């Protein structure tokens, strides 16, 4: 029997295995903990938290699409205070590895959130969701431009202090994702999360109106996997030393392996958890089998393997 070192690293932090949940797809963790112990995850990435509590969007908030779905939740959440008071202590009690995702509407808000997090123990990293509409700049999302992306990352870096790894989560809806990656790496991030959802729309052909209350929504699921693989491959090619948390349509060990071969150091499970609450555990065991089958003793040897020896 082969043994496998399944651990992975992002910045200074080590994770027992590379299977994470994706932000916004595991709620606060409590709902999934009914189906498996959260300690089995490499890490749980919390839903993006904002400074204040948010009601989010009206319904319908989702539309199924071929091998995918649109969502438009509008970042509903309790706000950082309630989050730190309720969610984090519970997760810490479960001994879960925690990555906190933060989101803001202004650069300042990201700074405020980071300051709140610096004193909190039990957190392994902060994921900066910069795919939010920038209210200061025509409502375009921060992740769309290098300068706004950098402004956010610098605010986080300045305020978070210590050695908590910073992961910038990028949007695929850009002309050149490598350019954005370069900018945030330059601004000092320890890792990247690729990819957030693609902007999409479904029109209800009965009502003849956009199906979602928010009109557009984020496309996720297996449909977008080829886009995720391409983005990860391009960015890993340009920056082979920057760890990438890969995500986008992963529903099996084979899918996770594909993202890892492209360059991901860890893989987040999002929409697949909606189809099956056990998805992350399934992916984890299938991936471990596949790695052993392919002769890997150390998971990290597989990262970016598709780039080598061609």
């Amino acid at each position: 029997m082969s043994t496998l070192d399944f651990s992975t690293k992002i910045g200074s932090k080590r994770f027992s295995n590379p299977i994470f949940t994706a932000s916004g797809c595991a709620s606060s963790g409590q709902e999934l903990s009914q189906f498996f112990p959260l300690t089995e995850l490499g890490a749980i990435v919390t839903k993006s938290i904002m400074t204040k509590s948010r009601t989010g969007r009206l319904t319908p908030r989702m539309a199924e699409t071929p091998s995918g779905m649109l969502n438009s939740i509008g970042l509903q959440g309790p706000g950082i205070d309630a989050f730190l008071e309720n969610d984090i202590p519970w997760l810490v009690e479960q001994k879960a590895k925690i990555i906190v995702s933060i989101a803001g509407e202004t650069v300042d808000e990201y700074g405020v959130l980071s300051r709140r997090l610096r004193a909190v123990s039990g957190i392994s990293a902060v994921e900066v969701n910069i795919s939010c509409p920038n209210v200061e700049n025509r409502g375009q999302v921060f992740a769309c431009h290098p300068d706004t992306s950098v402004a956010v990352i610098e605010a986080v870096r300045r305020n978070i202090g210590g050695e908590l790894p910073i992961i910038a989560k990028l949007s695929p809806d850009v002309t050149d994702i490598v350019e954005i990656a370069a900018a945030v790496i330059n601004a000092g991030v320890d890792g990247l999360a690729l990819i957030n959802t693609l902007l999409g729309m479904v029109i209800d052909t009965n009502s003849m109106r956009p199906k979602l209350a928010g009109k557009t929504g984020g496309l996720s699921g297996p449909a977008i996997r080829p886009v995720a693989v391409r983005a990860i491959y391009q960015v890993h090619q340009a920056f082979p030393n920057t760890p990438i948390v890969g995500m986008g349509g992963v529903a099996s060990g084979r899918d996770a392996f594909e993202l890892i071969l492209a360059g991901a150091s860890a893989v987040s499970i999002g929409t697949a958890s909606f189809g099956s609450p056990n998805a992350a555990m399934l992916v984890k065991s299938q991936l471990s089998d596949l790695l052993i089958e392919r002769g890997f003793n150390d998971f990290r040897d597989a990262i970016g393997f598709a780039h080598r020896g061609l």
Partner: protein
Amino acid sequence: MIPHKINKAAKQILAEVISNKKFGPYHHIVFAVGDMAASIKPGNFVAISVGGEQSSLILRRAFAIYRAIDKGPMGGSIELVVAPHGQGSSWLCARAIGEFVDLIGPLGTSFGIPTSNANAMLIGGGYGSAPLFALAELLKNRGCRVDMVLGASTANKIFAPLEGKRTVSSLTLTTDDGSAGIHGQISEAIPRLIRELGTEVIYSCGPMGMLSAIAKIAKEFDIAHQCSVEESMACGIGVCMTCVVPIRSEENVKMVRTCIDGPVMDGSQIIWDRKEVSDLMGL
């Protein structure tokens, strides 16, 4: 700090189809679910994967549990009443006996039972009547008077099986086209019936428009109203936040998940008017 409403009994299983019969425009489908049957309460639902292995349909579909039988000849079983509506429900209706489906249940909240005897009115629209029959039995066993009102657009869309009818004290039918029972929308018939029957608590299940109309009536009469709502659900287990309804809270509006805080909810808490919600949210 686990939200107290998570249904702790939920399990993911492969459930065998042991019967699948057409019943008017619906399919009455029975699944072998073993132990799960014992943990089911009236109002709970299940979430089923659809489309098979190569499916482009990646999300589960939610179905109210019509009946759960703890120890039948095939062990525990549950029964659903399914309208072949779109791709997923049509796929489910096409399952043959002996096939297995991936099913999670029981999910969600169940109907609350009055602590003392009460005159209960159970109102169901279309297949929305399905979960009301198990509730009727439970209420009757607790000594409540149970009046049932079932409506639909047309006669054959009323789901009212014989066995179910036996448990109720009175049964009133309504159809939009007058093809059976009272001619008109179900909500039009309710006020008179409440007065005549001395209704003290209303249970309802059906389309959102119907529930909203009933909520208004319940408010006017100042009687309790538990309704089972139906919002689009991506996950059914509380992780996606797509299935919310707006309820009143101190601040203004709170969006709660109908898969965890529902599907059975207090009708008076829900803000039924979209315009009111938008205004409260400052949209």
